[in-house]
């Protein structure tokens, strides 16, 4: 247990925000050793071109704004950028899209340059805060499996490694972890690790009222898993 409120959350609350910005969410996950793709927050094209030297192509470019909820809807996300020319034009395109589609009051905190995570099995790790039980973590496969089939498992924080393993194996779609047809065996242990770390993160931060790591991309065995996107809703408890 760490003492006091996490500075990232303090800052957001002080600024009257109830949602962490993209890079803040990643930063918070990093503090708990939850793998996230390499990323950097930049203000303009030149900075983007500089940081991409370390991050490496291919990258995703995303607009970061406290006023834009669904980034993709306003053309604020461009995937699979693989060279400097494309990165330049992507910056330009996002700026134009925002001008056109986002509300005029939308503040732009910057752009997130984020390394593309290779394809893998898409899973979702989510959390809510129940008035009686406190934080509850949900786990399921991405897309249709969670929403339509409700193939989700739940556990109450704090979650042990054993609980996390049971959680992963409980869902019907678990067979996909063991390799199906020509798909590889997935890195189950990496997901279990993320769930236990996520549990720790939630225990330490009672201000988190809702969170989604979606998707968490699970690569083949031995290659790990990454939270490719994260969303945290906070409240003043």
């Amino acid at each position, binding site marked *: 247990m760490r003492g006091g409120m996490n500075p990232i959350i303090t800052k957001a609350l002080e600024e009257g925000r109830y949602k962490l910005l993209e890079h803040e969410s990643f930063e918070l996950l990093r503090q708990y050793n939850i793998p996230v793709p390499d990323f950097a927050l930049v203000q303009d094209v030149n900075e983007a071109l500089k940081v991409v030297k370390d991050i490496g192509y291919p990258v995703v470019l995303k607009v970061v704004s406290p006023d834009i909820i669904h980034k993709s809807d306003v053309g604020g996300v461009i995937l699979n950028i693989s060279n400097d020319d494309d990165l330049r034009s992507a910056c330009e395109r996002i700026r134009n899209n925002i001008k056109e589609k986002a509300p005029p009051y939308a503040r732009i905190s910057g752009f997130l340059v984020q390394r593309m995570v290779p394809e893998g099995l898409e899973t979702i790790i989510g959390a809510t805060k*129940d*008035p*009686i*039980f*406190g934080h*509850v973590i949900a786990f399921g496969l991405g897309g249709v499996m969670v929403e339509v089939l409700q193939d*989700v*498992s*739940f*556990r*109450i924080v704090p*979650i042990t490694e054993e*609980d996390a393993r*049971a959680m992963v194996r*409980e869902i019907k779609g678990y067979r996909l972890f063991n390799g199906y047809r020509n798909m590889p065996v997935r890195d189950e242990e990496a997901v279990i690790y993320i769930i236990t770390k996520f549990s720790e993160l939630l225990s330490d931060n009672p201000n988190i009222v809702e969170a989604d790591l979606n998707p968490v991309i699970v690569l083949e065995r031995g290659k790990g898993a990454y939270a490719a996107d994260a969303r945290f809703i906070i409240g003043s408890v």
Partner: protein
Amino acid sequence: MEEQKQQPQEIKAVSEVSLVITSPLDLLFNPRSVAIIGATPRENSVGGVITKNLLTKFKGKVYLINPKYDEVNGIKYYKSILDIQDSIDLAVIVVPAPAVPKVADECARKGVKVTIIISGGFSEVGEEGAKLEEELRRVVQNRIRVLGPNCIGVYNAFNGLDTFFLPEDRMGRPKPGPPVALISQSGAVAGAILDWAARRNIGVGLAVNYGNKLDINEAELLEYFARDSRVKVIVMYMEGLKYPGGEGKKLLEVMKEVSSVKPIVVYKAGRTKAATGAVKSHTAALAGNYEIYRAMLKQANVIEADNLTDAFDMAKALATQPLPRGGNRVLVITDSGGMGIQSVDALDMRGLQVPELSESLQEILRKQLPPLAVTRNPIDLTGSATDAMYKFVLDTVLPTSYVDMALIIALMQIPGLTANLGNYIIEAKRFNKPIVVVSFGGNEYVAKFESHLEENGIPVYHAPHRAAKRCGRCMSTQK
């Protein structure tokens, strides 16, 4: 000299008692003296049933309190608990709700450590009642422990403590053993379970209902039953927790601890959205998200039952059977091929195996069994089965390392089977592996066979899927 010799012994005896009976929860279940506040000779009232229960059955001192009476049938009534000279271990309060805070205060002043407040009319009836409950909370806080209010209290078959205000002719009382304890959020459900258990000869030695849960909660009751050596299995009926801020986590923690000592079987009602409103008006609790409760039960290694009979089916097996020591392989013996197939289906669906026996083992079986018998497993002895064939298969296969438990199907309508089969099955307990029996039929002979087995600690089920479920659940409690 005599006196000096005895003195140290006496001191030892006292200190032993005070070691055993110190906590208020111990006094709640095992009081030496009970005061009934609101006692009455009117037999058909709540207070009257409790008065009669305790006067006739309780193995301890009973004091009656009601200012309306001086003496009835030679039994003294006190005006107030403060008028009693002796010390009181437990006070049972059955006065109308508005009078409860005052008498609870008197109990605390008397030095009583714990009280059962039977009276209803608190938070379960709305805002006025909730205010009264808050007033009561202030009166009792840090002074006296409370079970209830709005509860039917405690049933203890061992010492005759029985505050269940349902008359004997309406609610049968179960025997003490086999050692199952019941914790029920609903009073009426607790009463119905005891009646049902008494009729079926299922032992429930201890039962408790905590009503509005002003103070003593499920977690504490679980902790008590975990300590009580008379209890082997705990069955819990719950609708929902009610206090925000840690109550859920605490219960999870305690369940985890207790389930490592004794099996806990929980039936959680209020699973659907439709039922949440009903739960709220019942015990002022939120049913909450059923998924979260399920998560809690899984995390705590608690067995979840689908309904109350299911809960007791499992409790029965857990109370009487040894846990399988690391294995899921079932020996199935049957005199009906059809029932054998149904059992294999049901076992397989629960992740249990019915392994084919080794050729050498089958060879041994074939030498003794009639040519039509199937020896792979399930062992189908067919309609020409006899008691001796069952015994032979049990004694030959169950002790081997190929199987972890046995599911025996005995359709007693076959002429070759007699009461002796029961004895053979009971003798097979010596192999220290779980055994469940499927029996089906309606005649007296079948009924006798079944009760003979049950009395000797072999659970009997009337359908293969129920027996299979028990095999599976029993297995899942081992860790």
